[in-house]
């Protein structure tokens, strides 16, 4: 496995679970970690993987492919992707401003970026609902142009933009900070225009970080519940997200159906994240070549 550090004499050496160390306490700590993780994470997730099949493959398929479930999954994944893309663009601009420029209040803004990590999602949810409701300050402004945000898929997307905000900024920031000015200067000295420098020097270095931030924001947004339900209006087939549908199924005591939707969400997310990771690896390889 990847964790086993290959030693030069690896082939000749006897296989062992752990390398010898001068330090003690490995087995007690490893044992505790294994037991605690099994109880809190692994056994519960095993229930999610196994329990849907109680209703048979047909039952699972019906639970997952019903019109309402498909609409909810499409909304959760679609709005998460749009929100993550919005954050990929604006988050990179925020990161650029924070790394490259000096302006008053910069440190406060920098600390403030993490707000969605610290603010409870329900608090964000009712705050967003009050702003974008038809009588809220932004809701009224958009309403004047006949654009409704609250209780529509746009509202769902707005909540997911809030939730995903920090990820792209925090992914791109360190890369921009490490990007050597000398390389840019060299490009400029060799006669490249600023735009060409940006396109051929800066962009290839920050694009993988943007993708990382996009993936993290996307993964977080897909399963988001608290910040969304207040602004979404939760109309079945229109603005009902998949996590809410799970809760509705649970309230109907349809446990296997709820578990089936949960499992479908996890499988789709992991497949998409796997693809995004592969794309990331490809970008890094090309950037390095």
């Amino acid at each position, binding site marked *: *496995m*990847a*964790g*086993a550090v290959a030693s030069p004499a690896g082939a000749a050496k006897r296989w062992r*679970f*752990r*390398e010898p*160390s*001068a*330090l*003690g*306490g490995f087995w007690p*700590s*490893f044992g505790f970690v294994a037991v*605690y*993780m099994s109880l*809190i994470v692994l056994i*519960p*997730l095993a229930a999610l993987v196994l*329990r849907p099949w109680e209703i048979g493959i047909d039952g699972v398929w019906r639970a997952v492919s019903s019109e309402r479930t498909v609409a909810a999954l499409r909304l959760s994944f679609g709005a998460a992707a749009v929100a993550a893309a919005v954050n990929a663009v*604006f988050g990179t*601009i*925020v990161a650029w*401003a*924070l790394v490259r*420029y000096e*302006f008053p209040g910069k440190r406060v803004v920098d600390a*403030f*970026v*993490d*707000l*969605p990590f*610290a*603010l*409870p*999602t*329900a*608090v*964000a949810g*009712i*705050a967003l609902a*009050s702003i974008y409701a038809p009588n809220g300050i932004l809701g009224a402004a958009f309403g004047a142009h006949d654009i409704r945000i609250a209780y529509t898929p746009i509202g769902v997307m707005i909540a997911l933009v*809030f939730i995903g905000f920090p990820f792209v900024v925090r992914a791109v920031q360190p890369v921009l900070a490490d990007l050597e000015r000398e390389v*840019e200067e060299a490009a*400029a000295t060799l006669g490249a225009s600023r735009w060409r420098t940006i396109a051929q020097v800066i962009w290839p270095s920050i694009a993988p970080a943007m993708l990382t931030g996009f993936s993290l924001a996307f993964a977080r947004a*897909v*399963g*988001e*519940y*608290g910040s969304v339900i*207040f602004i979404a209006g939760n109309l079945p087939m229109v603005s009902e997200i998949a*996590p809410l549908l*799970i*809760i509705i199924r*649970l309230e109907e005591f349809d*446990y296997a159906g*709820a578990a089936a939707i*949960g499992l479908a*969400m996890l499988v789709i997310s*992991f497949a998409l994240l796997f693809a995004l990771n592969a794309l990331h690896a490809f970008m890094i390889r090309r950037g390095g070549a």
Partner: protein
Amino acid sequence: MTARSPAAPTRDPAWLKWTLITVALAYVVVVLALPLLAVFVEALRKGEAAFFASFNEPAALSAIQLTLLVTAISVPLNTVFGLTAAWAITKFEFVGKSFLTTLIDLPLSVSPVIAGLVYVLLYSVHGWFGPFFAERGIEIIFAVPGIVLATTLVTFPYVARELIPLMQQQGTDEEAAAATLGAGPWRTFFLVTLPNVKWALTFGVLLCTARAMGEFGAVSVVSGHIRGQTSTMPLHVEILYNEYNFVAAFAIASLLALFALVTLAVRAVLESRFEAELAAADRT
């Protein structure tokens, strides 16, 4: 300085600089600052008296108590786990180490609703272990133990994640020296490892606390929303909001928002201290 100045070939022209700063600030204000401001404005909409009266309610007080209780159980659990996991992962080489590290991050990509759902699948009356506990008169789902379990799962990675990268970077030299001089594992841990990571640990615990107090989705699934009994602060906010008691809902929410702001401020302070410490470590 103009864009054509030969001294600064990589400097963006002033118009571009200020355009980008304006766009960045506008985005931060609309996406982040406005909702935060709205919490306090709505909470104080009917004046201070109504604001403070919101806390003087049995249901509100019991929600605050329950939130503190749940936080006081799950944060220490995850702190002990985080320290132990970081010790095992960063101080030893063993098979499956990177797999274990990946597993620790797993709860981050699981929806909070799913985190609640899995415990319902295990411990409800129709769950795998539910009947076992029910026979012994122990309620887990729709009761406090379920809320603690769901909160623990959702906040599981935070302490470990803060510690692992730092301890990885610090290596095992200092611990090995202590061990060679005859210190046992506990002594090594408390006198060498712990002081080296105290700020990362502080921040990890703080973040874990903020998440534990604010957890909504997972807790919502397992709590059953019994007012005054199994309602945490975020759930109480939801109940009040759905009853159109907006001032009270936002008043409780403002307390949570205040705690979030304190978390961010402490992080900013810790990070500036950290930088000095890490720079000092680099010099030696």
